[in-house]
């Protein structure tokens, strides 16, 4: 927990955010609630992406594939399977896909892994597009989706779950194993870290949440187009948020989400091209100039180390 709440200012910040997001549907109009929902979606996606990619350095450019699979499952089983079951099923299906492709995919290292995950997501997108057009489905509309507050609080739960998961992973023995393989995979393996198993577990853990997020967002848009739920720019936004925030705990990516959600909300719908130019520029600038992200900027000055029992700082 110390990762998420290093001092009282951070605790205060998160408490305010949590409170604001929790009361939002009771005080705001549908438009503002919609923005809150988008913020929660990005939190859940970014935090779940970090479990594998921030912790191990295996940067995945294919996170959207789990989101798309989840959305597709809900759309295909619409009104044939009870909705809660379909949403949980979406998470399980995404995790299953991750488990199946994980072993061969995670053998691929460094930049090849990055580009492979992108290719894999695109392959799934084009395959499903082809299946849909072969079966005569250009797009689908969902009738009778639940109300916005129900969608909102489901997403709220997922966002909390994802933050809790990353916080746990980041401070656990498992997380330290993941970090060690990021620094030097061969050395970690020699020292007895079960690298293959750890990578696979992280991949599967990180896949379930975007599966459910995709399922819930399909209910929100009610209009299903394959190219939209498998849009690679969703993956890119997630990476930009995580890199913008910095750090390998839950805190940095949350900062990134706060900063970029606003931008994506303002521009994605009205000026998508401009939004993507800015996103690309942010990606380049942060990778090049600020590799440790906003968190690194804020915490650059080393705090003078005072020798005293650690209980003092556990505010």
């Amino acid at each position: 927990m110390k990762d998420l709440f290093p001092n009282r200012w951070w605790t205060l910040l998160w408490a305010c955010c949590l409170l604001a997001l929790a009361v939002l549907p009771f005080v705001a109009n549908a438009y503002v609630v919609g923005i809150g929902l988008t913020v929660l979606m990005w939190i859940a996606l970014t935090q779940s992406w970090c479990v594998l990619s921030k912790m191990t350095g295996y940067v995945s450019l294919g996170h959207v594939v789990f989101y798309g699979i989840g959305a597709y499952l809900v759309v295909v089983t619409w009104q044939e399977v009870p909705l809660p079951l379909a949403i949980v099923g979406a998470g399980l299906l995404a995790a299953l896909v991750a488990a199946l492709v994980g072993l061969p995919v995670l053998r691929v290292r460094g930049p090849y892994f990055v580009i492979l995950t992108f290719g894999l997501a695109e392959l799934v997108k084009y395959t499903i597009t082809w299946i849909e057009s072969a079966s005569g489905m250009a797009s689908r509309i969902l009738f009778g989706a639940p109300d916005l507050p129900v969608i909102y609080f489901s997403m709220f739960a997922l966002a909390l779950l994802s933050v809790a998961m990353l916080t746990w992973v980041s401070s656990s023995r498992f997380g330290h194993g993941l970090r060690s393989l990021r620094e030097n995979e061969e050395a970690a393996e020699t020292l007895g870290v079960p690298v293959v198993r750890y990578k696979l577990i992280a991949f599967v853990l990180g896949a379930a949440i975007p599966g459910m997020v995709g399922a819930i967002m399909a209910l929100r848009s009610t209009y299903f187009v394959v190219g939209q739920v498998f849009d690679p720019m969703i993956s890119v936004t997630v990476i930009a948020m995580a890199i913008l925030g910095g750090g390998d705990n839950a805190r940095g990516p949350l900062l990134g989400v706060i900063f970029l959600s606003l931008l994506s909300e303002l521009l994605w719908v009205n000026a998508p091209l401009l939004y993507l130019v800015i996103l690309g520029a942010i990606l380049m600038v942060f990778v090049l100039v600020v590799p440790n992200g906003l968190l690194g900027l804020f915490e650059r000055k080393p705090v003078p180390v005072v020798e005293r029992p650690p209980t003092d700082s556990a505010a």
Partner: protein
Amino acid sequence: MTVLDILLSGQLLFAALVTGSLYALIALGLNLVYGTMRMLNVAHGDVVMLGAYGAYWGFTLLDIPPLLAAPVVAGLGGLLGWALYRGIFQRMLSGGSGAGNNRLESNSLLLFFGLSIILQNATALVFTPNNRAYNYLDTVYHFGGVAMTGNRLAALLVAGTACIAVAVFLSRSVFGLATRAVIERREAAHIVGVDVDYVQRLSFILGFGSAALAGVLISMLGQFSPFSGFPFTIAGFIVIILGGLGNTMAGLLAALLLGVIETYGVALTSANMRSVLLYGAFVAALLLFPNGLFAGRAKSR
């Protein structure tokens, strides 16, 4: 037409040859940058797209025939490569960590990815996201029952010549020797006095220039849009994964193979399958060679 008719038609073979030669040219530039710097330039296809726009505007606004504009557009592409190298990548590569470091490679990939997104969307902002095409050299010639349009013949000839020229340059010139030395062993090449920075700079210029040239040729053949560059990046990757590093002949064969797979695959199924085939081949190639390209050499990094 039966399946056998499709497979035996000279028309398809010609189409596969044209596609393959363009892929070979694209892969050559990608290979040069990857080989000397171990950086995967995912924006390579977007440079191809920019080259296509260069030829398009030259032809529609100024009436310059694309084949005459080609050297100019290629030069502009090279200039872009030089600017990017001086502005961004030179500093990165001379940093303490050096090439061959996995983290650096992933970072450079994200940089190129950001660049790719910027190029695509900025082009769409400036020139609108619409498809573009123009008619040029569309007379049909017949050779032994195979109909060939002039622009396809020209594309095949120019791409083939450019590939051979670069290959000869790399195998005969001093620069080529230095390049191959850097590709084999960067550190050792530096120790024996190869100007690694010079080789990298020229590789960037050559890589970007050849991509822009490929773009000019592609613009003569059909429609393109600001977003049609990325599939060429993927095609280039497939070719260098299958073909090998610094091995020009194998690269050429791999490019022709990919041209055949794509052309025949689409002919046997439907046009919707093109992307599925391309990404399928890409994923399969990477899974078969999981250590990235040329695992045998990876030890020297």
